[in-house]
């Protein structure tokens, strides 16, 4: 079996952000379910949280390709 262990690093780096993104949207859904009129206010916050959590996985992806050689 051939391949590069850096790709495994990407798999590992995706676990945390995966959980994080799930938590962010769970909180968003909870918020909107409890108070539907707050949707407009919560939406940018939810997407901001999503973007910040996702950044770590993106780092992992970029580094997986950087250290491929």
């Amino acid at each position, binding site marked *: 079996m051939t391949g590069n262990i850096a790709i495994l690093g990407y798999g590992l780096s995706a676990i945390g952000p995966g959980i994080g993104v799930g938590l962010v949207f769970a909180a968003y859904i909870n918020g909107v379910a409890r108070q539907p009129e707050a949707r407009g206010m919560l939406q*940018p916050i939810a*997407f901001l949280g*999503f*973007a*910040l959590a996702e950044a770590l*996985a*993106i780092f992992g*992806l*970029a580094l997986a*390709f950087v250290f491929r050689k």
Partner: protein
Amino acid sequence: MSIVALAADGSSFETPGVADFWQPLIGDGAWAVTRASIVALLSVAIISWALLAGTKKLAVVPSKKQAATEALYGLVREGLGRDVIGSKEFLRFMPLIFTLFTMVLLNNLFSVIPVIYFPTMSRVAFPAVLAIVVFFVYHYIGMQKHGVIGYFKSLVPSGLPIALVPYIFVLELITDVFTRPVTLALRLFGNMFAGHLLLVLFVSGGQYMIAHGAIGIKIAGGGSILMGFVMTLFEILVQVLQAYIFALLAAIYIAGALADEH
């Protein structure tokens, strides 16, 4: 895996990789005109034409084109400008934020638009340039508003114990100078690159399996191509979302630099 088994008949499957995104059309090296740069120029032409055509004959009762243009602008202006930056100062940043949003949106959508099929932002230089523009804008307006010394002072929240101030200052400085622009560029790049790679893998892998495999593998190849269609729909969602997030983060960084305290 099946790919290894398929390779037995001589021709082997080449997994798509980073190299597939480097497509020079004219010349070579650092100054080559690549497919990405042609697509970027095309996006500028299309956006300019659409916006000029949409705002040419402005009327109180808008034409269809004008209504569509205004709806798009209104969406960005209300959702990203007024809500994030605040009603006092958002107007002078609207050209930048609306440009970022439309530019990123169209370039992302090019990934699934037939004939073009290339997301410009999957070459890291393009999102990097956009992030550098945002980087200079938010530092410049922050220094303009608070003064250079005041701007660096405003990085640290007031009321901290004096012993903590240097640590927090260094931490905030790293966030502002390094983490923010780098994540802004890499987030867009990573999403577009990974998304397009996934589509290429599904379609080219499926095509190879159908062309070279036994009957069971041919069926699996058909499933792979079908999955490519499903992922295309998902990618469209991601592309619109990433354009929104890029413009949102630019607006948030600008709002942060303008705020009295971070």
